[in-house]
């Protein structure tokens, strides 16, 4: 099997597993969002990934193209804040994968993704958003590969740990961005839904990468 085919397989498996996981966690994510938001985060992502999977399922495209289609579909199916954040960032970052998925290009993808989320949403670390899970995860991934020269799978596993700490970090702080910010101090004590879904997605990527 050609390299591209293997990578396409992996990407499609990843999309499937992420879609399944989000479907599984839909109720939980919505509960998180009802505590400090508007109770739709689970439904939003579930609708989005369901359509994204349908859009790419039997695709013969390049892996980068498939990733881009996932992003485009999320933009046009999710809506809300998470639509442009997840979808737009995947769309933009997918360019980094055009030469194939390698350790280096995956770092570039992760960095481009984080940058786009921050540019689009204007949130900084500590604002209690997905940025709080993403930033430590991307930083850890980059350092693990570029400085510690770990394998992508090991690096990703460290990144997942970092993301998890990021999610836990969002619980005790006050939201400054997103709907949760309207609650002011009342947002303290709840984890951020977007940070949580970011973690779940990364866990699935790790699972696929480890196989």
């Amino acid at each position, binding site marked *: 099997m050609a390299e591209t085919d293997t990578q396409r397989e992996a990407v499609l498996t990843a999309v499937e597993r992420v879609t399944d996981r989000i479907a599984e966690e839909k109720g939980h994510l919505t509960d998180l969002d009802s505590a400090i938001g508007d*109770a*739709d985060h689970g439904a939003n992502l579930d609708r989005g990934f369901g359509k994204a999977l349908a859009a790419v399922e039997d695709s013969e495209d390049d892996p980068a193209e498939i990733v881009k289609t996932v992003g485009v579909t999320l933009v046009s199916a999710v*809506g809300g804040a998470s*639509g442009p954040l997840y979808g737009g960032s995947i769309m933009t970052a997918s360019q980094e994968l055009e030469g194939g998925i390698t350790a280096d290009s995956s770092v570039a993808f992760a960095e481009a993704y984080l940058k786009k989320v921050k540019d689009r949403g204007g949130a900084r670390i500590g604002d209690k958003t997905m940025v709080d899970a993403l930033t430590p995860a991307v930083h850890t991934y980059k350092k693990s590969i570029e400085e510690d020269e770990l394998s992508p799978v090991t690096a990703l596993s460290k990144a997942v740990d970092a993301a998890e700490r990021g999610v836990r970090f969002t619980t005790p702080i006050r939201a400054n961005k997103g709907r949760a910010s309207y609650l002011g101090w009342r947002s303290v004590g709840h984890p951020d839904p977007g940070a949580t879904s970011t973690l779940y997605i990364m866990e699935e990527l790790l699972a696929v990468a480890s196989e």
Partner: protein
Amino acid sequence: MVRVDMKKLINEPGAVVDEMLDGMVAAYPEALARLDGTNVLVRADAPVEGKVGIVSGGGSGHEPTHAGYIGDGMLDGAAAGEVFTSPTADQLGEMIQACDAGEGVLCVVKNYEGDVMNFETGIELAEMESDVEVTYVVVDDDVAVEDSLYTSGRRGVCGTIFVHKAAGAKAAQGGDLAEVERVAQKVVDRVGTMGMALTSCTTPEKGEPTFDLPEDEIELGIGIHGEPGIERTEVMDADSVTEHLTERVLEDLELDAGARVATIVNGMGGTPQMELFVVNRRLQEILGERDIETWDAWVGDYMTSLDMAGCSITLLELDDELEELLSHPVETPALTVRDD
């Protein structure tokens, strides 16, 4: 037959927006049209020759917002997202193009990150695909939310209806894009709203109340998306609620004796009109006591949160221009102003 386990007149929860939009077009077949394959409604005669287009949009569940305000003198198009979820950028882009008659399009955006981000992307898409000139104003009238560098800013709520009305009138009178935008921004600068909830709402997807509100407590400073408010207090009577909301808005707008206002007592969807009029009675009394003149008082369901019981109070400080624009005749499903 599909069994639904909550008390709602719906079929599949996932189909509710689609079916609602068809039901709206069926109610106003001569006035409204649906853009194929989207959740966008536009004036049946859009784009209107020689007129700046005005569009809005946001999550569903706020009916009659937004599509209820489509019509002569108000909106040209409205995009409906899923319940409480912004519409997607691609549909916003299509709407903008469909409402452009060459005079440009103003987008009226409520200040939610989802709405703002999707509108920005939608505008980019429209500009890429055609040479439409687009601008937008962001409505942020909710005085309950602290406005500081460290928040997403205030939410856009019921004051948006006044923005639609004034900008729509200006466009109908032949104002160009810059003038229409100026008028919209003027309303944004002079309008304030504060809301409260007696009960939570229940979204079709979730099927149970978004937040728990004990029998003897109410939420002050809620938005329109089932977000909990800024403060929870014990149940108060209608006069006390009205005083609380009105004081907060008056403070924010810094209205002095002699000012002239238009007011909205807005129901959240599950509030009997009887109660809204009880609130309006006290509101107008308070304004009278402070020598603030009410030029026009609207009472009803203008921007709702599904079945939430509660209300919001909106004040807009008028000047002669705004008064004239608010009196301009308009004919939409949810608001009609007749020529005198």
